[in-house]
């Protein structure tokens, strides 16, 4: 039967002082007897917490702890800004400044617009195109 022995560490020290032999358990590597520390958080953990992708980091020290404290203060301020609302008079001011009618048709670029040509313009364009064709043909045939 195994019993918990509260005085084991003291005995171990005594044994060490006496230079006596230690039990097999006492010969275990030091790492096996240590309580593992939480992983050291980096600035990346703080970013992930601020991004809502990770829980708030714990066990921070030094620079990281200061960073966390800093962002807690900034979050208080940004939360307040998130509650800011439009001044109540603004909607009326905008409505009063609107033109009388909204544009019912989209403003299309010139190449998408319908083209209106008079018969005279069509004849002029045809004569122009025919003349250009003649000139081009003469240039090609020499």
């Amino acid at each position, binding site marked *: 039967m195994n019993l918990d022995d509260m005085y084991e560490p003291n005995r171990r020290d005594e044994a060490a002082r006496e230079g006596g032999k230690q039990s097999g358990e006492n010969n275990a590597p030091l790492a096996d007897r240590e309580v593992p520390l939480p992983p050291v958080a980096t*600035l990346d953990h703080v*970013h992930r917490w*601020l*991004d809502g992708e990770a829980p708030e980091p714990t066990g921070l020290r030094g620079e990281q702890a*200061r*960073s966390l*404290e*800093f*962002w807690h*203060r*900034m*979050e*208080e*301020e*940004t939360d*307040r*800004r*998130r*509650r*800011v*609302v*439009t*001044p109540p008079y*603004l*909607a009326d*001011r*905008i*409505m009063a*400044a*609107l*033109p*009388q*009618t*909204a*544009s*019912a*048709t*989209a*403003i299309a670029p010139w190449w998408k617009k319908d083209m209106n040509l008079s018969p005279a313009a069509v004849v002029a364009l045809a004569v122009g195109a025919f003349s250009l064709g003649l000139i081009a043909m003469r240039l090609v045939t020499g």
Partner: protein
Amino acid sequence: MKSTVPADQVDQVDADQEIIARVLSGDRDAFSILIHRYSDPLFRHALGMTGSPDVAEDILQMSFIKAYSHLAEVRGRFDAWVFRIVANGCKDWLKNIRRTHLSYDEDDQPTGYANPEEELDLTELRSDLDRALQTLPVSLREAFVMKHVEGRSYEEMAELLSTTVGALKMRVHRAREALQALLEEKYA
């Protein structure tokens, strides 16, 4: 590409389209529904970008007038479309203010806080954060304001700014690091 728009957003788009149709058919007053529906997040954006409530109000007014004048051109989400008008209005204002070296009134503080006593206690932090934000490049400030002040998700930001989630995360992280470097000594 397959669109994965949430159902409530689809309803919202339909509701907006219905109002737009009413406005285009001559019901001018219906436009005020759209103003009330979207002005708060847009005002917060303009305020975060410019740091001045007066300028934010002017940008919002000009943006809604522009939206009204070009209402027939809306395709898809009205809120995303009007957001882009406001965001461009803010960028234009920032460009002009840099060019002319005009400075707006630094005492011109945001309005609309819930509790006036709370406001007094935090005036210093608020103005320090405003000043620090003004030193950031526009793209970093925009990303920080959208994430921390408007509380938008990276996915929503990516859709509104037509960029990637990764690029926005990078901008927000760089903005945080810059702000921390400027303000940590006083506030940590």
